Every structure is written in C-alpha cells, then in structure tokens.
C-alpha cells in the first residue's frame, strides 16, 4: 500500500508519548464538547420520560419535583443520587397540593432487571398503582404483569404501612402463589409467570423498605415543598 514499513526502526519513547498526548488531547476535547452540547437535550429527554411515567400514574400531577432522601432528611435532587440516598418524585397538582409520591423499584426477573415505577399515597399509606419502566421478559408470558388485569389490580391499594418504630414496613410486601392472596400486602402472582411477578414484588418491597422510613417523617416538609 502507500507507506510500506521497510526499515523497522525503534521509535523513541519521546515520540510515542508526544503522539499519545496529542491524540488524547484531541479526543478529550471532542468528548467535552459533545457532552456540553448534548447535555441539555439529554436532560430534557430524561425529564420528559420521567414526567410521562409519573403522569401515567398520577394523572393530575402538574408539577413533578425530584427529591433525594437519606438519613439526614430530604432535599431537592441534583444530578445522580448519592450511594445511600433514595430518589423519589413528589407530584403536586396545579394548586400546589401534594398529590402522591412516585419512586422506582428494580429487581432481577427472568431475563433481565425489571424496573417499575410505583405511586405511593401518604393518606392511605398504600401503593395505588405501578408502571413497568423497563423489562425484557418473555413476550406472552412475563409481560402479563402489564396486561393481566387481575395482577394489575393487586396494586390498586397495596398496604405498605410502616411499623410503629417507623424503621420497617409493618408487613413486608410479598408475592404469593396464584390464588393464595390473603392480606392487603400480598401480591397475587400470575400462574405461569411467577418469576416476573416475584421480581415486581421484590423490586417494590426493596424500594419501599428503604424509602418510606426516610420519607414519612418528612412528609410535612413535602406538603409545603411546592410553595418554596
């Protein structure tokens, strides 16, 4: 081809370092520029997806505020949540009244992680709806967690009361065998799609167990939150 290497010479390390430095500088500049340019669009996209999800759960939400909760309290979210913080979304109607809280739970299903967004209403201390954000379960089997009316009905009023010491749930949310739901905190699994049903239940339970003890003591602040 055009530049055959006929003389195998040893390149000086200075030249190698110079070349690598040049290439990495150019590449670094390119990446920074791309990040700067795409950031607003990415943020807007994420916001849009989030709002669409939350609004499908809480139709009269007009203002959605992202919060992080950790052991020191709750605060408005900036960037990615810290390791020990739990992200949640407070939904306010157009009069600034707190409507409900939404948060995300995730657990491993049959094929991949199942991510669900759930709505929590403080007045009934219950979950009143879920929306599957992402999953790759077997079509026709695993995706019944979205389409099966009986399964979806589990989340019309799923009991997630805290115990008296406010540290855990009074009753952990659990997924039970199809047809054996007895309590308000049981999720009736879909026959034939037990693994996915359990993933949904586990994802919600893990998230609620972490979030509610941090969140419930600060509900008052949230109710005033929109005014701030």
């Amino acid at each position, binding site marked *: 081809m055009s530049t055959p290497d006929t003389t195998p010479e040893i390149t000086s390390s200075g030249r190698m370092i110079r070349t690598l430095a040049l290439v990495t500088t150019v590449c670094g500049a390119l990446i920074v520029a791309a990040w700067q340019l795409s950031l607003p669009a990415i943020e807007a996209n994420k916001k849009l997806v989030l709002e669409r999800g939350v609004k499908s759960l809480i139709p009269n939400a007009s203002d959605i505020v992202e919060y992080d909760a950790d052991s020191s309290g709750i605060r408005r979210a900036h960037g990615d949540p810290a390791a020990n913080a739990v992200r949640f979304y407070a939904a306010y109607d157009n009069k600034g009244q707190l409507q409900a809280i939404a948060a995300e739970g995730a657990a491993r299903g*049959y094929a991949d992680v199942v991510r669900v967004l759930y709505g929590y209403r403080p007045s009934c201390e219950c979950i009143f709806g879920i929306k599957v954000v992402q999953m790759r379960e*077997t079509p*026709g*089997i695993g995706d019944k967690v979205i389409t099966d009316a009986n399964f979806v009905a589990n989340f019309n009023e799923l009991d997630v009361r805290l115990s008296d010491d406010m540290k855990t749930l009074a009753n952990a949310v659990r997924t039970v*065998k*199809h*047809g054996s739901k007895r309590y308000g905190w049981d999720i009736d699994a879909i*026959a*034939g799609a*037990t*693994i996915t049903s359990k993933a949904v239940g586990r994802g919600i339970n893990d998230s609620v167990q972490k979030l509610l003890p941090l969140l419930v003591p600060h509900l008052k602040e949230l109710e005033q939150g929109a005014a701030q």
Partner: protein
Amino acid sequence: MSIELRTAPHLHVGRDVPTIMRHVVYALLPICAFSIWQYGLSAIALIVTVTLSCLAAERIANRLSGTVNTLSDWSATITGLLLALTLPPAFPLWMGAVAGFSAVWLGKSLFGGLGHNPFNPALVGRAFVQAAFPTAITTWAPAFAAQRFTEFIPSTLTLPFMVPNDISAWVAAATVDGFTGATPLARWKFEHFVYPVEDMITGAAGASSGETSALLLLLCGLYLIVRKFMDWRIPVAVIGSAMVMAWAFQLYDAEAFPPMHLALLSGGLMLGALFMATDMATSPVTPKAIWIYGALIGVLTIIIRYFGGLTEGVMYAILIGNAAAPLLDKYLQPKVFGAKPK
C-alpha cells in the same frame, strides 16, 4: 437395539434401518389410534398434518442438498408421528406444520440427515414451537368430548399465522366433568392437586395427544423390546432413575413434592423414555454409557419438573441427554478382551 462391538464372525440378522423403523411405526399406530379415539377429528388432522409436513420437509431437503430420496426409510414418518403425539390435541394445524418443518430441517437435515443428527428431531421440533408459541402449546383440550367426532376443536382450524381461536366455548360444550385446562403436572405445581391414578392410566387427564395413557405406551414399548428393536436398558434406566428421584423427594418432604405415581404416569415420561430417548442415532452405544445416559435423563426430568419454571421436563432432559451421548460413549468404551490396561 444394542450395537455391541464384536469381532468376527459377523452374522447378518436380516435387519436394516427401514425394517426397524417400520416396526417402530407399527408400535406407534395403536397410540395414534387411542389419541384419535380420545380427541376425535382434531387428533386425526394434527397427526396427518404434522407427518405430512415432516415428509415434505425431508423431500425438500433431499432436493436442495442433491442427495437420494430418503422418504422410504420411514424415519421422517416416525419423527412426524412422535412429534404429533407430543403436541396438545388442540394445537393449531399451521403451528403443527411449523413444528414438522423445524423438526426435520433444524433437527436432522442441517446435520446431514438420518444418523448424523445429534438431537432427536421430533423433540427439536417440539422445543422450537414451545419457544415460539408458549401459550398455544400449553392450551389443553378435554378428552372424550361428546362432539369430538362431529366437529374440530376450534383452535385446530386457525388460519395460518393467526392467534389460535378461543376454545373455551367448545370446552364448555364438551361437558367433561372436572376439566380445568391443565395437565396433572401443572395442577400439582399450581394447586397441589393429586390426579387419580386410574385417570392417568386410562387417559382421561388433560395432556398432549399421545401421552395420556401410560399403560398403552408401556405395552407398545414392550412390543419393540420383545422384538429386540429397542434397547430395554434405556427406558429402564430413565424410568427407574425418575422413580428413585421421585421417591427420594417424597421421603424428604411428602407435603412439598408430588407422590411418585404422579411423577411416573403423568406427562411425557413414558412416551419420552420408550420412544424418544431410545432413538438410535442420538443415544449412546456402549453399555455403561447407556445406563448413565438413561439415568441422566430420568434425574433431569424430575429436577426440571420440581424446581424449574416449566411443569414438564422430559423434552429438555432428553435433549440434554442427547447432547451428552457422544461424550459418554467416548469415555466409557468397553474394555477390549485381552487388551492390557494402560
């Protein structure tokens, strides 16, 4: 049929592949007849469609690869019959045809035809439609429905590529007491319901077309064993190991695990052990390997049934056994007489 490695003199027993295969077909015919008596027109249509599509697939594969016509060795016919017997009686015919073509093409032709296939073609076909149409393949119709000889089960005549027609009205009109649309294994798994033994011997339980009557399957298998067309060690190893496993689990916890008769008589264990695990091209030939192969299938069947997401495990157990067969043969060669151990 056992192939023992011997030195001369070789006596020809007058048996070749088509003869053996023909006798397997004879042994399958009573099972088909019983299936037709149970499920009527739909069973006839399913058996005919699946078998014809297997034959068509074989013929097309012969044409494309430019090899001789292999229809007359009966192996495609057996694949078709066996495949039809493992499908639910209400299975739409077009899906049956898909199963037939994938059985012969994916399971046999691509590997070079009869004798070169590592997996049992009928099971490859079933595995394909199990993965492709998981709902249709677990939709069961009741046996001995009153109108079975006058009309088809509605889902049988589904238009190609369309969702199967709803059969609930037909099932309701069939007036079969206690039919729940689930197999004995599924009813155990989800409801802890123990099917009566006599129902599973006479074929009154919901199941695939050809797996309902354990007794008939045993008789037909026995014919092949007596005529020495089949290696008795394989079904004995499969059923025996499944029995031991089921017994052990029952001993460990009688509440959590189903009774032994359910494990033995329900599902495709008999059909698989007698007619599929014994497929000569896909089972090992050395004596030790045969025993281990059979035991592997029996043990896997029970493990998949009890701990897997599926209710039935015979199909995958046999396919895994098929995959292990060459390895077993390789490491379990019998000692040659007079040879010194290395």
